[in-house]
């Protein structure tokens, strides 16, 4: 099968992408993990995970990780949202909408919020025996964000934009 129309999918996708914006905001602002061991404690946010790389003398890696974990997923949500609105709207497809769909496809492989979450789960298992770990609001927000973004970005048929542009030619 090459393509199939998905009924009602654009409205669902837009709702899920709006939820993704909110979850993204929570994931970057709230505490992500906290640790207690031998009377000492430490609490980190997602941003701290990239800042520690900078402070340890790896500025290029810190910038790269910030792009992969924070900026590219945010761009992916924003572009998918804009493309969804474009599909929902009737009337001619603008050049900007077409370019946004091109860039959505290009940025998606570089948005690695899901892989970051797997990395965090692995680290939790690694240190679970050594210390008491608490997962914060940001952890659950990121986990939920991965689900809403994956379903939201796939629920709509972004190629509808191409079909409409071809008809207009």
């Amino acid at each position, binding site marked *: 099968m090459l393509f199939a129309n998905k009924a009602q999918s654009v409205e669902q996708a837009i709702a899920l992408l709006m939820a993704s914006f909110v979850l993204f905001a929570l994931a970057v602002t709230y505490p992500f993990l906290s*640790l207690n*061991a031998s009377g000492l404690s430490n609490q*980190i946010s997602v941003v701290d995970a990239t800042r*520690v790389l900078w402070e340890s003398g790896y500025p290029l890696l810190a910038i790269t*990780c910030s792009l992969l974990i924070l900026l590219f997923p945010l761009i992916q949500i924003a572009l998918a949202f804009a493309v969804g609105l474009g599909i929902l709207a009737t009337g001619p497809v603008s050049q900007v909408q077409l370019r946004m*769909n091109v860039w959505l496809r290009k940025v998606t492989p570089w948005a690695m919020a899901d892989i970051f979450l*797997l990395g965090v789960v*692995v680290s939790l298992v690694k240190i679970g*025996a050594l210390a008491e770990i608490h997962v914060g609001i940001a952890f659950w927000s990121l986990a939920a964000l991965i689900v809403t973004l994956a379903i939201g970005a796939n629920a709509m048929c972004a190629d509808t934009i191409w079909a409409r542009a071809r008809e207009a030619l």
Partner: protein
Amino acid sequence: MTSARALGLIQCRSCGSLAHEGDTRCPVCGDKVQSYSTMSLQRVWAFWTAGIAAYIPGNMLPIMITSTPQGDAPSTIIGGVAILMHHGSYLIAAVIFFASIVVPVSKFLVLAWLTLSIQLRSNQSAHTRQQAHEMIELIGSWSMVDVFVVAALAALIQLGAIMRVAPGPGVEFFALSVLLTMLAARSLDTRLIWATAND
């Protein structure tokens, strides 16, 4: 099978529409279009070679250094897998082994196979080769997981004199290697698989 190029057309890699020979932009989506050329394979080999060059120090150098009052303990990727196995975390050890060793090594091998098969005009199934390419594009970014493990542990484990974790020099090479192999996979123009299979 007739190819688009034989009809004087170029297939757009973004939206799949057909542009005319001589067009620089796709008439539908506006992305750059170019008929396939073997330049794509040179780019694949360049990124591939650079990726292997970064993968070796990425595995040899420590990716993480744990400091305790007993001293500093550097650990490499494979060393980290061994420690996890020792603690009985077999599932997590398998995840790291798969993401950091199996995925990158199979990417290097599959990319070399695909590129050579085009250059040597192999008559292996084009369909199988297309699927192999889609597979390595899909799993490629998961190798970054170990880099994020190091970032999370280094941020979290800052307990003064008791225990501190710092990233090691290997992590930068390893991340570079993952990004370079992703670029290598994306540089391979899969239209070449079909073009050489058609002849």
